[in-house]
């Protein structure tokens, strides 16, 4: 099977998923709006503090809104297309991975189209925060229109980085079977940490978030350049290369891990 027919397979899956979701249009829209509101409460929590105290170590409310928005949208992009990678534990415990191994495709490419998730709530929340924060910074003259394509690029490279982190974590499941707790550290806690400027954290933690679990490269490092003109114009390029390396590394790890797969049962 070649790449072209794989993409047409994926398109088919997206079409059918959307169609089946749209059977309950009202429920779907209501659920998405509620999800957006609930998720924004976490930002609101910090926004209230910033509103009272002004800035955190020189980072304004808008800049932190931007960090929130970029990492949310990156995560949304990753989870939309590869949600099942995050849910590999279900396949390992229930033995559903067996069925995937009987398909004439690389396992990862059979796993990803198992489901396609429409995350309208996250798109609404991230999109709203991004427009609000970038709009405010533009009207104050802090950034210009160039920041828009750069931000979109950062969201895409960020999605690749988060996918790599997710894939590497999931691969550990081939040894341990249970991965939920580990994902809580490498995906949830790390992502929450990256919602704030890494300079707030002690050296060991910020280095960890830049090198070992590189969520800092998703939003913090690009924001340093895009919003504040720090570092240099090489930032987007270097981040893209780093994303490529992460992807390569995690794919190799996945390929190794899958040879260790022990199916459940006898």
């Amino acid at each position, binding site marked *: 099977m070649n790449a072209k027919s794989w993409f047409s397979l994926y398109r088919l899956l997206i079409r059918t998923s959307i169609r089946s979701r749209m059977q309950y249009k009202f429920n779907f829209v209501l659920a998405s709006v509620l999800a957006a509101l609930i998720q924004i409460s976490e930002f609101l929590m910090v926004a209230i503090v910033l509103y009272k105290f002004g800035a955190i170590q020189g980072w304004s409310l808008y800049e932190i809104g931007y960090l929130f928005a970029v990492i949310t949208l990156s995560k949304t992009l990753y989870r939309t297309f590869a949600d099942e990678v995050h849910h590999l534990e279900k396949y390992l415990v229930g033995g559903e991975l067996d*069925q995937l191994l009987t398909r004439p495709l690389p396992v990862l490419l059979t796993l990803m189209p198992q489901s396609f998730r429409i995350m309208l709530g996250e798109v609404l929340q991230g999109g709203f925060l991004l427009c609000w924060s970038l709009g405010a910074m533009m009207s104050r003259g802090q950034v210009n229109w160039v920041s828009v394509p750069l931000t979109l690029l950062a969201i895409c490279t960020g999605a690749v980085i988060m996918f790599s982190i997710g894939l590497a974590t999931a691969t550990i499941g081939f040894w341990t079977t249970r991965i939920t707790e580990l994902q809580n550290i490498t995906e949830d806690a790390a992502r929450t940490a990256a919602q704030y400027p890494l300079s707030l954290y002690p050296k060991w933690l910020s280095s960890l978030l830049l090198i070992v679990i590189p969520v800092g490269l998703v939003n913090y490092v690009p924001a340093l350049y895009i919003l504040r003109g720090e570092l240099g114009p090489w930032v987007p390029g270097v981040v893209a290369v780093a994303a490529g390396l992460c992807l390569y590394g995690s794919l190799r790890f996945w390929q190794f891990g899958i040879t260790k797969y022990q199916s459940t049962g006898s």
Partner: protein
Amino acid sequence: MNIEVTEIRKQFKTPVTREGRFAGLRTLFSRDYIVKEAVRGISFQVDSGEFIGYIGPNGAGKSTTIKMLTGILHPTSGKVLLGGMDPHKERRQTVRRLGVVFGQRSGLWWDLPVKDSYDILTEMYGVTPADKKRRLDQFAELLDLHEFWATPVRKLSLGQRMRADLAAAMLHDPDLLFLDEPTIGLDVNAKRNIRQFLKILNEQFGKTILLTTHDMDDIEQLCKRVMVINEGQLSYDGTTQGLRDSIGLPTLFRVAFRGAFHIPEHFQASLSERNNPIISSSLINMPIHVTKVQDNIVTVEANRQEWSTMDILRELEGWGEIDDIDMEEPDFEDVIHRVY
């Protein structure tokens, strides 16, 4: 497509689970394993067009064997060839020619209507639209798919899901079909449906089929050949009739006598002292013995390996005037219990 299996073994290593504080972390980094050998050197050959039953008690290594044959698990040692191809070295090319159905779980997309799953599988296996239409029309008729064509898979009954799964496994027209407990949990009707379909696949389309099951009716109605696995090793490989004979379960004769009858001493002894293990075990070796006398009806167990049916009838005639006689073949289920 033929199957060639030589001396396959599978060992599972499970890490020793630690107790106490930080048990999870310590287990994660521990290097101690318990090695369990699930399959211990199995060899067999299957020719194109055969229909084979693969049976054994739970935990005997049935599923592990199937998983090694289909390329899901790598054998620790030994070799598997499907139509001359190694399903582990050339997994993608080999599985293209296989159809696999796991009775316990579905290969369809849970939230999507049945037909959408077929669309996706069509793309996945690169089936042409013309072939897809022709095959689906055929299966839809044989398996009555139309009644749940647009229903999401999660809402199907177990029988419907199984039919949908079978059609899905046949969509790319594989030569070889592996079925792991395809009739598990189904009612009589659904079982009959599935068996009919499998029979057609084997007899009219010439598909090679290997099936595991706990339902002996599946074996008796479908398979000419049967393999029995026990504790990771093959304990029988031959015809279904041969399996029945080799165990030598007794045939039951229920004889109604008209008027008086007389049972010879040496056969009668078995009645009163049947509970005595020493005597009853020696009686098993007798060609016939009486198990029950009620009014004028006498029940006799006979081992037809030693005496032919005619011999037995002749003996029974000697006891009195026979009014009616009723013969019962051993139940296949019992045959299997003897093997395990």
